[in-house]
């Protein structure tokens, strides 16, 4: 049975990082590999930071929402959404590590290398980054077979 989890907050550096941190803490109930959890934490931190830096203009703080769907012993999917500027550039961007001297621009490359597939879409006013990764059976905690739906919505993800 699939498990769904959701958390929303403001697109500030602090709340974006907190949303990623809480998502990974939740994943830790199901996944038994600290290495894989670090990968998920990095991918989600990049995805959420991307919203903070690119989605909203400097004088406007908008919303950020993270949804997770776990299919225990099979895969994890993430949806990171915002209601800011459409990221048309990212729709066709090729992930690339860039030059060693670059001081920015590695987020997409990091995300692309940590998941199996990802995509950017825009539905109405909503921009969505979707990522998915298959997780092999042996990396799941054995007790995580029950169905569950968790939903937390908070304008202050630090609660």
């Amino acid at each position, binding site marked *: 049975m699939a498990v769904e989890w959701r958390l929303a907050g403001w697109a500030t*550096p602090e709340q*974006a990082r907190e949303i990623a941190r809480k998502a990974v803490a939740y994943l830790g109930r199901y996944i038994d590999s600290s290495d894989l959890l670090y990968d998920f934490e*990095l991918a989600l931190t990049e995805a959420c930071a991307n919203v903070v830096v690119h989605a909203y203009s400097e004088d406007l703080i908008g919303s950020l929402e993270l949804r997770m769907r776990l299919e225990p012993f099979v895969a994890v999917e993430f949806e990171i959404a915002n209601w800011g500027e459409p990221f048309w550039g990212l729709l066709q961007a090729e992930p690339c590590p860039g030059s060693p001297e*670059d*001081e920015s621009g590695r987020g997409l490359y990091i995300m692309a290398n940590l998941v199996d597939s990802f995509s950017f879409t825009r539905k109405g006013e909503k921009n969505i980054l979707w990522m998915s990764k298959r997780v092999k059976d042996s990396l799941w905690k054995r007790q995580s077979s029950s169905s569950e739906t968790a939903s937390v919505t908070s304008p202050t993800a630090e609660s």
Partner: protein
Amino acid sequence: MEKTVIEQRNGVCYVTYSGELTLEVTSQLKERIEQALENEHCRALVMDLSETVFLDSSGIGFLVSLNKKMRQNDNTFYLYRPSTQVRKTLSLVKLLEYFSIAESEEELPEEIAG
């Protein structure tokens, strides 16, 4: 909780950073370190990352920026004992070879080792 200790001895700036090196902290940290570098001419910057538990692309950009700044002035920059997490992120973006990394004082030049 993040913690930064900055010490200057004999023209070398030693920074020990504990915590997460992410978008949350990089601007402020960069300001602090650059101010320390300006206050006393430092020919080398040694950044101890042994207690840095998380590094994202903002943190990478911060480290690249410090490296460039030091090199531009003919100075040197070392990552000292980077944690497993720091190494993992740097490896992912193929930057392990880009930085000068020291795992012990013996691997630092004699004039820099504390």
